[in-house]
């Protein structure tokens, strides 16, 4: 308060050294952590060693092409379902955010149903349920669609993933600060313009990670599709196992799924880096 305006600071403030690093104590938790890590590495090493030692060219040439066919089915199924699901998720998310309570409740009911029941049950119900209602479906010309197991799988998967994606989108839109809406309005933008140009781009950054997770979950979830006779990667694996009774058929499937998940993870890493480049502090 009473510092005189003529006071001059002559001394330079010496930069202080950071506090010395305190060695972390060796706790019980750390020991358990290292043991768990060693056990996991051991397991991974053991499985890799098993695959190398039990290398069987005959098995691979016999079932390799089948696995490739199954892989294509899996990728096609997941990609189609995710795209259709994404298209369906936008209106559902909008409905969830709607001030109209009836619309909101309807969307909530849909999301609640599809997130609250197993995908396996949904696929089973769509496929065998449609079979029970063949005359009705035929009368409205939909039997042609539901006759095919692949269509039924895409139908069920898309409905399922749309429910999850709608929630991801809703959460992301709600995470954008209200001030953004208000600023857009102040600039004279319509609500649609504001949503499309200001809110959605910011929401998608938030939604990106959960979207990646959803694709990965869908990829692994699709492994149940063999119950309706679609022979995806897992279906081909089970068939190969039932012929050869060789445990490594499952290990190969695990390796392929792992590679797919790792690829998606890497793509997502890059996507995120690209989309959030304006938030980076270096460069």
């Amino acid at each position, binding site marked *: 308060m009473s510092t005189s305006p003529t006071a001059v600071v002559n001394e330079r403030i010496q930069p202080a050294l950071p506090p010395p690093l305190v060695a972390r104590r060796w706790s019980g938790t750390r020991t358990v952590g290292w043991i768990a890590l060693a056990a996991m590495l051991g397991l991974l090493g053991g499985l890799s060693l098993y695959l190398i030692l039990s290398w069987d060219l005959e098995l691979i040439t016999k079932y390799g092409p089948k696995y490739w066919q199954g892989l294509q089915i899996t990728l096609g199924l997941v990609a189609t379902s995710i795209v259709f699901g994404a298209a369906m998720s936008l209106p559902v998310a909008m409905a969830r955010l709607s001030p109209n309570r009836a619309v909101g409740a309807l969307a909530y009911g849909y999301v609640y149903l599809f997130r609250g029941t197993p995908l396996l049950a949904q696929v089973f119900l769509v496929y*065998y349920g*449609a*079979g029970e209602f063949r005359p009705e479906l035929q009368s409205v010309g939909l039997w042609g669609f539901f006759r095919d197991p692949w269509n039924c799988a895409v139908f069920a998967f898309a409905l399922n993933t749309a429910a999850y994606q709608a929630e991801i989108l809703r959460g992301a839109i709600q995470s954008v600060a209200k001030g953004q809406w208000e600023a857009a309005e102040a600039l004279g933008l319509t609500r649609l313009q504001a949503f499309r140009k200001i809110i959605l781009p910011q929401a998608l950054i938030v939604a990106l990670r959960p979207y990646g997770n959803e694709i990965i979950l869908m990829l692994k979830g699709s492994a149940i599709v063999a119950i309706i*006779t679609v*022979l995806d990667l897992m*279906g081909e694996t*089970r068939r190969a196992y039932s*012929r050869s*009774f060789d445990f490594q058929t499952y290990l190969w499937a695990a390796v392929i799924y792992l590679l797919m998940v790792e690829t998606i993870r890497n793509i997502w890493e890059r996507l995120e880096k690209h989309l959030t480049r304006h938030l980076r502090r270096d460069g």
Partner: protein
Amino acid sequence: MRFLKHLTLTAAALATAASLSSAQADGMKLKIGTEGAYPPFNNMTADGKLEGFDIDIANALCAEMKAECTFVTQDWDGIIPALQAGKYDAIIASMSITDERKKKVDFTNKYYNTPPAVAVPKDSRLTGVSPADLAGAAIGAQGSTTHANFAEARYTDSTVRGYPTADEYKLDIASGRLDAVMDDVTVLQEWLASEDGACCKLLGTVIPDPAIHGEGAGIAIRKGETELAAKFNAAIKAIRANGVYKSINDKYFTFDAYGG
């Protein structure tokens, strides 16, 4: 207890599911693995009990061996791994004896051998069961079985689709997604005689291929347990000889399921 023991032994042929206490305190204890979804051989009743030809035969064999048996149900795809993991000691689940399976488990002698057959919807225009007759048709079978393997190997001009259990292909032929289904003749007959089988009819039996279908259904046990195999074989021989097999057989079939 004496009365109970007597009752159990004489009623062995008619013994129903669940564990059979043969009241042999010194007898061996066996866990039997079965699928529980393959009528009339092994299936669940509405109140969750196991019944069927396999179950009755298993109980009769256990009584013959003076063993105390309990049943464990297990999905077909995992039925051999679970045996190897020691969840049970023997599989009595209409498992066909094949060379591929012999690499992983040991088998007893067969306890029945019935031919495969083809069923079609009642209004089907299919007339024969040969691969040429069924060209272009969608054929359903239970996946991972000898029937599915046979269909895939021989009916190359047809679309063969594998189902998790027999229940699902029955649903799919009833709804018209399949043109034909292939399974053991006794399984198909049982289904066709029931209300659910009203959609369909038996088209005919197929001559089995021993290289694929094997020599019949046997009891699978872990490799190297020759003593147990010998006991089962002796028991199969005994129930064939003493009429117990016949009384069980006649409960389910109009012909001798043991085969030639």
